[in-house]
C-alpha cells in the first residue's frame, strides 16, 4: 500500500480527475431525478445517473460490472419503470404534487445521514489509496473465475430466487381484472426478459 503522503488531494491523477467529473455529473443527475416535477424526466435522468455509475465502474477497472450495469439497469430497469409510469397514467408535464408532505422531514434525515456518512467515510479512508495499475481486477475472466470457484452455491440459489420472482410477478398480474389484461401481459414479459438476461450474463 502506498501512503497518501505521496498522493495528496491537491495533486490529483488523471483518473481521479475523470472520476470526479463523472461523479459530479452522476450526483447532479441523481439530484434532479429525486427533485424534478416531471415524472418521465425523472426516469430519463435516472438513465444518466446509472450510465454515469457505469463509467465510474470502468474507471475502477471493474469492466464486467460496468457492462452488466448498462445492460440491466439502463437497458431494462428504466424501460420497466417507464412502462410502470405509463400504465399508472402518470401525468406528462409538470405535476405540482410530485413530492409528499413529508419532504422536510425527508430532507432533514437525508442531510443528517449524508453529513454523518461523509464525515465517517472521509475520517476513515482519507489516507487510503487504490492502486489501479497492473492487471484489471474486474475483467470478465477474473470475475467469472471467482464467481464459479467461490460463489457457485449463492449463484445457483439466486437463480431459484429469480424463478420465484418470475412466478410471483405472474401471479400478481393474474389477479388483474379482465380489462387490465394488456398491462398484465406487458409486465411479466418484461420481467422475464430481464431475469433471463441476468442469468445469461451471470453464466458468462
Amino acid at each position, binding site marked *: 500500500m502506498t501512503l497518501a503522503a505521496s498522493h495528496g488531494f491537491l495533486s490529483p491523477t488523471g483518473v481521479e480527475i475523470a472520476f470526479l467529473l463523472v461523479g459530479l455529473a452522476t450526483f447532479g443527475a441523481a439530484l434532479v431525478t429525486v427533485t424534478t416535477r416531471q415524472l418521465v424526466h425523472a426516469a430519463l435522468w435516472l438513465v444518466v445517473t446509472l450510465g454515469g455509475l457505469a463509467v465510474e465502474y470502468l474507471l475502477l477497472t471493474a469492466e464486467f460490472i460496468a457492462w452488466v450495469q448498462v445492460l440491466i439497469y439502463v437497458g431494462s*430497469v428504466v424501460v420497466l*419503470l417507464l412502462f410502470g409510469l405509463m400504465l399508472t397514467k*402518470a401525468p406528462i408535464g409538470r405535476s405540482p404534487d410530485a413530492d409528499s408532505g413529508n419532504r422536510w422531514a*425527508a430532507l432533514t434525515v437525508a442531510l443528517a445521514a449524508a453529513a454523518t456518512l461523509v464525515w465517517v*467515510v472521509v475520517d476513515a479512508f482519507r489516507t487510503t489509496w487504490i492502486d489501479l495499475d497492473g492487471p484489471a481486477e474486474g475483467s470478465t475472466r*477474473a470475475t467469472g473465475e471467482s464467481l464459479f470457484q467461490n460463489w457457485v452455491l449463492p449463484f445457483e440459489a*439466486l437463480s431459484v430466487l429469480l424463478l420465484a420472482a418470475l412466478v410471483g410477478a405472474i401471479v400478481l398480474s393474474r389477479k388483474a381484472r379482465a380489462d387490465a389484461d394488456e398491462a398484465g401481459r406487458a*409486465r411479466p414479459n418484461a420481467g422475464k426478459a430481464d431475469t433471463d438476461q441476468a442469468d445469461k450474463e451471470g453464466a458468462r
Partner: protein
Amino acid sequence: MHLAYPAVLSALLFCTGLYGVLARRNAILVLMSVELMLNAVNLNLVAFDIWLSKAAEETLHSGQALTLFTIAIAAAEIGIGLAIVLAVYRNRGTSDIDKLRDTAEGHESGTPAADEKAEATA
C-alpha cells in the same frame, strides 16, 4: 486513486436516494430512488473490492460477486415492485404512497392493499 472519492460519491448518492424514498409521492418514483440507493451500495462494493484485491491480495472478489447478486436481485425487486404498484393502482385508482393509510390509528376500513404498499417501498 483515493478511496475517498468513490466512497464519498457512494454516500452522497445513497442519501439522494434516501431523500427520494422519503419525499416522493408517486410509488414509481420511490422505486427509482430505491434503485439509486442500491447503485450507491454497488459502487461502494466495487470500490472496496478493487482496493482490497490489490492491497490485501484477496482473490475472492466478494465485492464484485455481491454486486452482481445485488443487480440480479434488484431486477427481480423492480419486477415484483412494479407488479404490486400496478395492482394497487388498479384497486385504488392511485399510486400515491401517502394516500395509502389503512394502517393508521382509527382507520376502520382496512384493505389488503396495505400490506402491498409496505412491500413496494422496501
